[in-house]
């Protein structure tokens, strides 16, 4: 029953997300077109209007995309926006492609030279700002966006490994730079557009940059202030290199405390690996903080149906064995744990991904039980075999 319910609501989220994205894009185009028509006496050229509407929509969406990552780190209320952002990326690529196609057709067509050459090269010079083919910058940006859109499917993620894939994804910042150059050297520098566009481009850059800066600083501050404490790795004769994580009571039920190992090389502030230490059904288990899907922060996730559930896209890994429930095959590294009194200790040497580790049980104190229950999330019926309920998550083609 839980299974069925969850399946339907997964569909609903994605559909709702896409509907909102589509609706917002239609809203933008309608307002842009409507205001343009309402404020000119002669009717605007419909093709030029479409070129401008799609071009500006694409760059506005690009700014939103660039801010989602850091914004989602400010508050987990923004998690729903992060969840399906690849669809936002693909949508914006489609809008930019339409913009480029209309330009090639209208400005590049009907002439003696082929449209691509006409738009990108004819009569241009790389030596001068005035004659610089700013369209070429847009073209470069579009190529990068194409690369992202084309590799967005989880098939590529598996093939390229998340690290490589994420590297490719970082080129979105290159696309951003190219597109800003495209507009700055194009319409804005050419006096075609006025002060509003110019200031918006500046404001956009400031917003994107400060989102990233603030998110980065907070991330570092987390490690410093003990929200993610640096594990105490000072030699302890009887602990054989195991590190102290804190006390059981620091960890909410079904949630984790993240510890940051000191980097194996280099001095602080270099950080080493992060371990997410979960508390579940009176036991403590530790897994890597890095999700096998796209590196999401598992320690900000929650144990649902006995599985650590990633806050980004909901991939699940058994809290005891780091294995995704069948039919899924992803695995994450686990760590050995033990509890002394109420102090939690972790062996910092990761075990091979998918290695089962018995949870370290501790004695329940009177106020432990159900104190951290979350009324909002469907919980598994304890009478049901948990593993039967697990294969819920989306592994459908995603983009």
């Amino acid at each position, binding site marked *: 029953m839980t299974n069925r319910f*969850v399946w339907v*609501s*997964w569909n609903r*989220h*994605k559909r709702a997300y896409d509907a909102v994205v589509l609706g*917002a894009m239609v*809203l*933008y185009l309608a*307002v*842009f077109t*409507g*205001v*343009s028509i309402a*404020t*000119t006496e*002669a009717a605007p*050229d419909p*093709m030029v209007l479409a070129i*401008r509407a799609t071009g*500006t929509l694409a760059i506005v969406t690009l700014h939103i995309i660039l801010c989602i990552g850091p914004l989602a780190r400010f508050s*987990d209320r923004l998690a729903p926006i992060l969840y399906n952002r690849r669809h936002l990326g693909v949508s914006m690529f489609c809008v930019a492609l339409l913009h480029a196609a209309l330009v090639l057709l*209208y*400005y*590049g067509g*009907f*002439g*003696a030279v082929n449209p691509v050459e*006409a*738009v*990108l090269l*004819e*009569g241009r*010079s790389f030596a001068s700002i*005035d004659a610089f083919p*700013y*369209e070429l910058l847009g073209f470069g940006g579009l190529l990068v966006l194409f690369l992202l859109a084309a590799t967005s499917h989880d098939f590529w993620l598996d093939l390229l490994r998340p690290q490589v894939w994420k590297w490719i994804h970082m080129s979105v910042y290159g696309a951003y730079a190219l597109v800003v150059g495209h507009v700055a050297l*194009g*319409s804005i520098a*050419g*006096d*075609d*557009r006025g*002060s*509003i*566009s110019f200031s918006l481009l500046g404001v956009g850059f400031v917003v994107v940059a400060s989102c990233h800066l603030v998110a980065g600083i907070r991330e570092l501050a987390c490690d410093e202030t003990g929200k993610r404490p640096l594990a105490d790795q000072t030699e302890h004769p009887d602990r054989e290199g195991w590190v102290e994580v804190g006390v059981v009571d*620091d960890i909410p039920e079904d*949630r984790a405390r993240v510890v940051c190992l000191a980097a194996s090389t280099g001095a602080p502030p270099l950080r080493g690996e992060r371990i997410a230490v979960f508390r579940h059904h009176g036991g403590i288990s530790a897994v890597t903080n890095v999700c096998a899907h796209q590196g999401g922060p598992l320690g900000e*996730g*929650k144990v*649902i149906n006995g599985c650590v559930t990633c*806050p980004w*896209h909901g991939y699940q890994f058994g809290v005891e064995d780091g294995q995704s429930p069948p039919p899924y095959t992803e695995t994450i590294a686990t760590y050995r744990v033990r509890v002394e009194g109420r102090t939690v200790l972790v062996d910092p040497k990761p075990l091979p991904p998918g290695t089962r580790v018995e949870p370290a049980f501790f004695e329940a104190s009177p106020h432990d039980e159900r104190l*951290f229950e*979350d009324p*909002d*999330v*469907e919980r598994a019926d304890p009478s049901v075999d948990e593993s039967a309920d697990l294969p*819920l*998550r*989306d592994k459908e083609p995603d983009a």
Partner: protein
Amino acid sequence: MSEERSERGFYVGYAALPRRHRVFLLIALPIALAGLALGAAGLALDQPDWGTGFWETGAAREFRGTITLEPYPVLHTTGGEVPASYLLVEMGKFGSADRFTKMPEIDGATVSIRGRELHRDGRRMIEIDPDHPALGPPVAVLPADRPAVPPHRENAPDAVTLRGEIVDSKCYLGAMKPGAGRGHKACATLCISGGIPPVLVVRDGDAAPVYYLLTDPGGEGLSGSGLSVLLPMIAEQIEVRGTPGHLGSWRTLRIDPGQFK
């Protein structure tokens, strides 16, 4: 702190939306959409003027007058309220010089031309209709019942320096709006290299812009290497030195493309 955190709902994409996420979205989404609409309106208001270009639609009409081929093919009519000089261009991004080099004898003749009119600020142009099985060729020499009127031509003795923008006359006069500016640069370059006559638009404050048909120093149409030198200057505000003159109702400017090297 731990308690506060655990009481918050946890979002999983495929599970039910926790209440606190739902409340947040219900408040944030309308605000975000309103901001988006505001941004769209701001960007729309910030667009350059669309201009007053006009391009006739519907069936092609017939225009009668005297044709001259240099510097560019022009039809001079006397029928209307004021004499008018129409630049002659083909469909697409092509001038009509090629058509008329095959019939040099037509220079100065009285002709009938089937086409559609473009105009802006009193500057006029005809896009010649293509050959049509039922209607026949679009250009016909008329029997000279009266002598053709040669158009007014003159040239000033002294060179002047003007500041303005080189546009392709077809888009600017109405084929595309606004048909000027850097956004339109690639298209204007394509048009002008395809033989559409280049025109210098000189603006002085709020006064009506002044238009100059650009020719080479000998008063002939710009072509070949002279034209290539011009191409990177298109759609930018530039200074041009040349000798002004008149051809019918058009102002002309004889320029030495070498000044741009």
